Structures are given as structure tokens and as C-alpha cells.
């Protein structure tokens, strides 16, 4: 690159960096962590004065964005596979697994459907089931793994309405446009208008793990490490438990 282009690029990076560097720690986190992380980040900011910028989405699209060079400092994924996909960009020895979750089948608050097990999803009254995209999004992949294990997937596959992330699946059930959906236990805590038709016992369901790690290119590694440590602290764990997450000991 010639000198002129280099200067332009440098200027752009500096400006872009300056915007992000307005003291914020940038966290890319799975959608299911939204409410818990927001509360934790608020408390942290109040206590330390450091700003935390949260970017929620499906772990799959977040991982893609990080691979394309998005300026994340910390990645908090909903499954190991997505963290593995960016293995080369993770700062060594910063990856830990502290959180787990469990799956539930939800229906609209005013639904008449009754379910004793996942098999009841095959009944004719259930025409459509919302899942986070079972090809890419962790919540959908977990759900599919569970249904495959029960031998129900072939019968249910054609009923599936794939959504962009697990919160979108929840919204689809809330809107009444699908009869049922599978989301995380933690998602039901924040929704007033759905009810749990069946909770998958954690030991029967797939092993859900939420790894978190700092990225090599973090703007302010020291600040990022501090927040990462806070996420593993007893205070933060209490908040996660409050929202229904399961702690991995």
C-alpha cells in the first residue's frame, strides 16, 4: 500500500478506535444472556466507573462478525462450537466455562395445550414450532440434539420455523403465530406472556455450556481482564442464578 492509502487507513482506524475507546469494554454475548448481563454490567459500571458496551445476538452471527474483524474485547458464547470457531483469536488462558442452562418447551400464555413430554410436540394440534435456527444457533442446535436423541426429529422437522436467535423464537411464541417453541429456561423468566409446557430435566437434555473468553485484539486488555474476572465473581454468579442459569462448579 502506498503512503497515502496508509495514512487514510490509519486515520480511519484511529477515529474508529477512538469511538470505541471512549473507555468502553465491548462484549459480544449470546442473546439468552441479555437481561442477566445487562444487570451485571450496570452494577459493574456503577462500582468501577468503567463503561461496558454490550452487543447481543445469536452466537453464530457474533462469531462470524468477530472472524470478519469486528472490534470485540470479550466473547460470551452459548456453545463451545462457536467459541472453537474463533479459537485463533482468543487470548491464551482466558477461556472459562462457568454457566449452563436448560431447555424448556413454551406455549403462549393463553394456550390450551398440555404436554407431558417432548413427544407431545408431535400431536396434530401443534402445527408449528419455533426454534432458533437449528443449523447455526446454539439454542436451536441444542434443541435439535435433544429431539434427535428422542428420535422425534424426523417427525418434527417440517413443523420447525427457524428464527434468527432464541429471543426471536420466544417472540414468535408470544405473538401466537406458532403453537410452541423451545427456548432456554432463563428466557421464560423475563417473558410474561408465555408459560412453560414442559421443562427438560438438565440431566436428560444436551450438555449446555456458555464459554467466555477475552480476545487477543482487545483494546484495553487490563480492563477486559478485570471485567472477565468480575463475570466469574460470586456477585455476578448470584445474578445469573437469579435469572435461572445453572452454575458449573
Amino acid at each position, binding site marked *: 500500500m502506498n503512503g497515502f492509502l496508509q495514512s487514510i487507513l490509519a486515520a480511519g482506524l484511529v477515529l474508529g478506535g477512538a469511538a470505541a475507546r471512549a473507555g468502553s469494554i465491548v462484549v459480544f454475548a449470546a442473546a439468552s444472556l441479555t437481561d442477566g448481563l445487562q444487570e451485571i454490567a450496570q452494577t459493574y459500571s456503577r462500582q468501577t466507573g468503567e463503561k461496558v458496551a454490550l452487543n447481543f445476538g445469536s452466537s453464530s452471527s457474533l462469531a462470524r462478525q468477530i472472524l470478519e474483524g469486528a472490534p470485540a474485547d470479550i466473547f460470551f458464547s452459548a456453545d463451545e462450537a462457536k467459541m472453537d470457531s474463533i479459537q485463533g483469536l482468543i487470548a491464551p488462558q482466558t477461556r472459562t466455562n462457568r454457566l449452563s442452562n436448560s431447555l424448556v418447551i413454551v406455549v403462549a400464555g393463553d394456550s390450551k395445550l398440555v404436554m407431558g413430554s417432548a413427544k407431545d410436540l408431535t400431536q396434530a394440534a401443534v402445527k408449528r414450532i419455533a426454534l432458533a435456527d437449528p443449523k447455526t444457533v446454539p439454542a436451536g442446535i441444542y434443541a435439535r440434539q435433544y429431539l434427535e436423541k428422542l428420535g422425534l426429529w424426523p417427525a418434527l422437522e*417440517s413443523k420447525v420455523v427457524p428464527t434468527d436467535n432464541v429471543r426471536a423464537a420466544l417472540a414468535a411464541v408470544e405473538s401466537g*403465530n406458532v403453537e410452541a417453541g423451545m427456548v432456554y429456561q432463563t428466557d421464560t423468566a423475563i417473558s410474561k406472556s408465555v408459560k412453560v409446557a414442559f421443562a427438560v430435566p438438565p440431566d436428560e437434555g444436551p450438555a449446555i455450556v456458555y464459554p467466555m473468553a477475552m480476545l487477543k485484539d482487545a483494546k484495553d486488555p487490563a480492563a477486559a481482564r478485570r471485567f472477565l474476572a468480575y463475570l466469574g465473581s460470586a456477585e455476578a454468579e448470584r445474578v445469573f442464578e437469579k435469572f435461572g442459569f445453572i452454575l458449573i462448579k
Partner: protein
Amino acid sequence: MNAEEWQIVWFTAWVSALSTLVILPFGLAAAWLLARRDWPGKSLVETVVTMPLVMPPVATGLILLKLLGRRGPLGRFFHETLNLDIVFTWRGVLIALGVMSFPLLVLCARIAFDQVNPRFEQIARTLGAGEGRVFFTITLPLAWRGILGGMTLAFARALGEFGATIMVAGNIPGQTSTLSLSIFQHVQLGQDAQAYRLLGVSVALAFLAVWISECLLLRSKWPGRK
């Protein structure tokens, strides 16, 4: 290209074609009214008809979702009375495509009607033709090029529709998956080769559609045009 990809191309093509046909009578009616009649509030109608062209497609899609969902005013009727679902089905795709391409059809058809000399219609009336006959034997035949050009443009727009479609119909494999939705998903999955293949088909279809509509819209055949 494998069978599944061809299925997506085929689905996209036929649902786009069908949506164009479905909006045709409404589009022609709207275009004719705007070209031939004046009434208080006409500019309001003009604005509303053009809005899907300039609003963010996801915004239009959101409005449609609220209207056509099972709890929405229109969707409730279909769900409870006719046991039909619109959202998350091919019918949702059809309506999303139709709404998004409607303004283009009306725009082109209106210009086509504007170019028909009203004198022909007047003389036809003196010869005893009622309004229906005047429209089908005089106005429409003299405007057919512009109308066909508008239909082709609407079809091309429907082929490429994404924002409203994903809101109203989602991307359900084998049921509502269109070319643009598939390309998006392949990119998300990092499946670039598949994405490029579908992209190629998209470009070819769009090119063909626009080229045909250019030929139709730019050539003026009848003398006696204003």
C-alpha cells in the same frame, strides 16, 4: 447446483410470478384512477401507494406481520374462520412480495395510461362503448407495453425481496425459503460457494427481467400518442 437449490429457484420464481399476477388488477385499478380521475385526497392515495417503495422493507414487513399474524385484525379472520395461516407460510411470502412490488407496477401503469390520448376514449364513448368496454378495448391495448414493462419490473422486485419476507414468512427450508433468504443464510453459515451459486442465478434473473422491461418501456409504438 443441487436439487434443493433448484427448488429454491423454482419456488422464488413461481411465487414472484404469482404475486405479480395477484396485484395486477389492483395495480391497474389504482393506476387508472390516478391517471384519469381527480378527487379530494388524491395526493394522499398517491403517497400511500408509493410508501412501500421508500420505507425500509423490514418496517413494511413489521406492519404486515402485525396485520396478518394470528392475533392481527386480518390474520385472525383467516385463522379462525378459514383455518388458514398466512404468517410463516408461502402465502405470507406471496403477500410480502406483492406489497413491496405494488408501487412499481402502479407507477409504470400510470405512466402508460397517461400516454394514451384521452381523445380515443372519448370517441369510443360516442360510438356507444361503456366504461368497461372503453377500458378493455381502447385504453388497455394502447397501454399494454408500459403495463407489461411495469409487470416485469414488479416481478424483478419480487425476485429480490428480502426484508419484508423475512419478517412475515421467516426462512423455513422447503416452505418459505427464497433466493435472497438462502443467500443470506449461506453467508451466515460461511458457505460461500453455495452463496455465490445462488447469487449468480439471482443476478441472471434480475438482469433478464430488467432488460425485458427496458425494451418494453422505452419503445413507443403507436402514433397519436400525446
